[in-house]
C-alpha cells in the first residue's frame, strides 16, 4: 500500500514538470514565446555541459561552498555557545532575545559597505555577512533547546547527585541536540542564500557572480543553465542538511 | 425487540462493511440488525476492534455500508441525515468559536437567522449545565465541559436520534458518572431517542433501556438485553444487586469476545 500511495503523487509531480517543459519547448520552437527571452529547454540543458567545460562553473561552485563552509564553522563556534549562554542567564535572555529575533527581520546585507571596508574585497566579506544573517536562528534554537530540557530528566540527574558540569554534558546537551541541529539547519539555509545573493550583488567570486556575468553577456541559454545549477546546488544542500540532521538524531 | 412500544425511529437492516486491504478483505461488520424506538436509550457495546466505530460512521452517514441499509424515519441513510446528530469520541469543539457559537453551528449551517439561533443555542447550553459559559472559548474549559458543548451542539438541531460514539472515553471516572446523570436528565426532559456506542459496561447498564452486544470482528449481534431497572435512574443505581447481575451477564459475553481480540493482537505481534 505504501508503494501505491507514493506512486500517483510521484507520477503527477514529475509528469507535470516534464509536461510543462515540453509545452515550453514547443511554444519557443514555434516562436509563440520569444526565444530571446526564454530559450528552448533543450538548449538550456545543452548549455549545462558548456558551463562545466568553458565557464568553470565547478570552480565558482567551490568558492561558494568554501564561503558557506567557513560561515558554518562560525555558526557552530559562535552561535551555539551563545545560545546556550542565553539559556542559562535568563536576565540576558529576556534582554536580548527580542533583539536577536528582530535582527533576523532586518536586511543586514545593506550594511555591505561597512563589511567591505573591514574585511576587504574578497570572500571573507561575503562569509561574514552570511554569518551574521545565519546567527539568529542558531542562537535562538540552541537557547530553546536547552531551556526545553524536560524537568524530569534533570530530576533523574539530581537523584544521582550529578554535578552541574555532569548535568550539562550528560543530560542537558544531549536532550537539546535535536533542536540545536534544527537551528543550525535553518541558519545554514539563510547563510547559503545570503552567500549567493551577495556574490551576485557585489561580484566577488562564486556562483552568484557567474550568473550575473552570463546575464550581462546576454548568453541566455547559459544564464538559465547557471540559474538551474544554483537551484540544484541549493536543493542538494538542503537535502544533505536534512539527511545529516536525521542521521545525527538517530545515532544520538 | 422494543421497550417503549412506540414506532421505530432507526432501523438497521443486515448492515455489513468490508474493507479492501493489501492483506485481503477485512470484514469489520457483518449482518448487524436492530431497531431503536422513539424515546429509547439503546447502547451498542463490544470489545475494542469489534467494528463499533465503523457502525457509528455508517449510521451517521459518514461512511457507506457495503450491504444492508440504515433507515431513519422513512428515509434511507446514504449521507449525514438532518434527523441524526453525532457526538464524536475525540474532543470536537471548534477552538476558535465561543461555546455559544459552537452550539449554534448546526443552526448556522441550516441558515437560521442569527438572533434566533443564538437564543436556541443558549437554551441548549443551559440544558447541559453550562449556563454562564456562553461567551467562553473551549480552551478555557475542562474536558468534561467541552464534551457537554459537543452534546449541546448535537441537540441544538433537535434531531430525532442522538448518536454518540464513546463520548466519555477520554474523561475520568467521576466526571463520566456525573455526565451520565446529565445525559439521563436531558433524555427525560426532551424525551430524546439516543443510541450510544461504548465499551464501558457499567456506563451502558446505567444509561440504557436496551443493550445490543456486538461480537469481536467481524462485528455481529451477539445478544440483545433489555435492562429492566427502574427509571428515573441516577449513578446511585450502580450499587444495586440487579445492576450487578446485568453487568456480570454482559461481561460474560464480552469476556469471550475480548479474549479473542487479545489473542488476535498477540498473534499479530
Amino acid at each position, binding site marked *: 500500500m505504501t508503494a501505491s*500511495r*507514493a506512486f*500517483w*503523487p*510521484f507520477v*503527477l*509531480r514529475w509528469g*507535470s514538470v516534464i509536461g510543462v517543459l515540453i509545452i515550453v519547448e514547443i511554444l519557443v520552437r514555434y516562436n509563440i514565446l520569444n526565444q530571446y*527571452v*526564454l530559450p528552448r529547454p533543450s538548449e538550456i540543458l545543452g548549455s549545462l555541459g558548456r558551463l562545466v567545460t568553458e565557464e568553470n562553473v565547478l570552480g565558482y561552485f567551490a568558492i561558494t561552498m568554501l564561503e558557506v563552509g567557513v560561515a558554518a564553522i562560525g555558526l557552530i563556534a559562535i552561535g551555539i555557545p551563545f545560545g546556550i549562554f542565553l*539559556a*542559562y542567564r*535568563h*536576565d*540576558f535572555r529576556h*534582554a536580548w532575545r527580542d533583539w536577536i529575533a*528582530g535582527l*533576523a*527581520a*532586518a*536586511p543586514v*546585507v*545593506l550594511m555591505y*559597505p*561597512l563589511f567591505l*571596508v573591514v574585511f576587504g574585497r574578497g570572500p571573507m566579506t561575503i562569509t561574514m555577512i552570511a554569518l551574521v544573517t545565519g546567527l539568529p536562528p542558531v542562537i535562538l534554537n540552541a537557547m530553546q533547546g536547552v*531551556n526545553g*530540557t*524536560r*524537568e524530569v530528566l*534533570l530530576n533523574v540527574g*539530581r537523584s544521582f547527585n550529578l554535578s*552541574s558540569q555532569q548535568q550539562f554534558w550528560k543530560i542537558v546537551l544531549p536532550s537539546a541536540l535535536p533542536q540545536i541541529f534544527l537551528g543550525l539547519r535553518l541558519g545554514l539555509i539563510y547563510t*547559503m*542564500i545570503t552567500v*549567493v*545573493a551577495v556574490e*551576485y550583488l557585489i561580484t566577488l567570486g562564486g556562483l*552568484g557572480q557567474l*550568473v550575473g556575468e*552570463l*546575464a550581462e553577456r546576454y548568453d*541566455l541559454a547559459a*544564464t538559465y543553465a547557471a*540559474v538551474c545549477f*544554483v537551484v540544484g546546488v*541549493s*536543493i542538494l544542500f*538542503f537535502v544533505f542538511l536534512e539527511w545529516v540532521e536525521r542521521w545525527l538524531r538517530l545515532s544520538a | 425487540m422494543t421497550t417503549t412500544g412506540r414506532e421505530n425511529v432507526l432501523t438497521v437492516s443486515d448492515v455489513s462493511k468490508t474493507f479492501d486491504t493489501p492483506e485481503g478483505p477485512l470484514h469489520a461488520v457483518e449482518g448487524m440488525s436492530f431497531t431503536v424506538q422513539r424515546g429509547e436509550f439503546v447502547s451498542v457495546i463490544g470489545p475494542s476492534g469489534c467494528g463499533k466505530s465503523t457502525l457509528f460512521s455508517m449510521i*451517521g*452517514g*459518514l461512511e457507506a455500508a457495503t450491504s444492508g441499509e440504515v433507515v431513519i424515519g422513512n428515509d434511507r441513510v446514504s449521507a*449525514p441525515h438532518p434527523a441524526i446528530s*453525532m457526538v*464524536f469520541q*475525540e*474532543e*470536537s469543539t471548534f477552538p476558535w468559536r465561543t461555546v455559544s457559537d459552537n452550539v449554534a*453551528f448546526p443552526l448556522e*449551517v441550516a441558515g437560521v437567522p442569527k438572533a434566533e439561533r443564538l437564543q436556541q443555542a443558549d437554551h441548549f447550553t443551559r440544558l447541559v449545565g453550562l449556563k454562564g459559559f456562553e461567551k467562553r472559548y473551549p480552551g478555557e474549559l475542562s474536558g468534561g465541559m467541552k464534551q457537554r458543548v459537543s452534546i449541546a451542539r448535537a441537540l441544538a438541531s433537535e434531531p430525532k436520534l442522538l448518536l454518540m460514539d464513546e463520548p466519555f472515553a477520554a474523561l475520568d471516572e467521576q466526571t463520566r458518572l456525573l455526565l451520565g446523570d446529565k445525559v439521563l436528565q436531558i433524555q427525560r426532559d426532551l424525551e430524546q431517542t439516543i443510541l450510544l456506542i461504548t465499551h464501558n459496561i457499567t456506563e451502558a447498564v446505567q444509561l440504557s433501556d436496551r443493550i445490543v452486544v456486538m461480537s469481536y470482528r467481524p462485528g455481529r449481534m451477539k445478544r440483545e438485553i433489555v435492562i429492566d431497572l427502574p427509571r428515573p435512574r441516577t449513578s446511585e443505581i450502580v450499587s444495586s444487586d440487579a445492576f450487578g447481575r446485568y453487568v456480570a451477564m454482559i461481561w460474560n459475553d464480552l469476556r469471550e469476545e475480548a479474549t479473542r481480540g487479545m489473542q488476535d493482537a498477540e498473534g499479530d505481534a
Partner: protein
Amino acid sequence: MAQTIGLTKAQPPRTGRVAVIRVATVVILLVVWEMIARSGLLYEDVVPTLFAIAGGIVQTLADPAFWQHLQYTAMELTISLCLGGGLGILAGIVIGTNPLIGRAFEPLLYYLGPTPKIIFFPLLIMWFGIGQASKAAMGTISAFFPVALSVAAGLREIDPVLIKVGRSFRASPLQMTLKIYFPAMREPLVNGLRLAFGVSVIGVLLAETKFARHGLGFMVTQFYQQFDMPALYGLVVIIFGFAIAVNWLIGRFSRAV
C-alpha cells in the same frame, strides 16, 4: 545545582536588571562605534561618527527624493505581498486540502523554498525590464513560498474530527471553507505572512540595489557611489527601523487576535 533549577522553569523577567542590561548593551555598542570612528583605525569616512550618522538620518528624511524612492519601494512591496501572498494562499489551500495534489506538489514547494530567489532576478529582468515590474516580481516570488507552505501545513494539520463535525452537520463546500478551513488557517497564515514580509523586503531592496533607477535600494547604491557615508548609514538605519517595526507589529497582531 542552582543553575539547572533555573534552566527549564520559566523565569519572570526581573525588569530592573533587564533594563540595565539593555541600556548597557546599547551604550557599549555606541561607545565602541564612536571610538572606532574617531580613531582612524578604518577609513574615517566608512565609519562615520554617531553625530554624522544622526545628521545623515535627518538629511535623508528631509530629502524629498527619499520620499519619492520610498513610494516606489512601498508600491513594489505592496504588490509583492498582495500578489505573492494571494497566490500563496490559493496554492496553499489546494495543496493543503487535496491529499493527492498535496503529496505531489508540496515537496516541490518545500525544496524550492530555501533557494536564493535573487538568482532569478537576471531572468526577471529579461522578462520585465529594469523597471518596477521586475522588482515587484522578485518580491512576489519571495513572498509566495512561505505563505503557500504555511497555509498548506496549517490546513493539513487541521484536527480531522473537525472536518467530520462539518460533514455530520451537512455543511456545503462553501460553508466548510468559510466556517472551518479559514479559521483553522488564520494563525499559520499570519506566521507565513510575517516571514513573507521579511524575505520580500530583502528581495525587493536587493533587486533595487543591483539594477534600478528608483527605490530605496537604488538610493543606497547611489549614496555608496557618491561615497556619502553618513547619508548611507542614515538611510540604512531608517530601513532597518522600518523592517523591525513592521515585523514586531505583525507579531503583536498575531498574538492579540
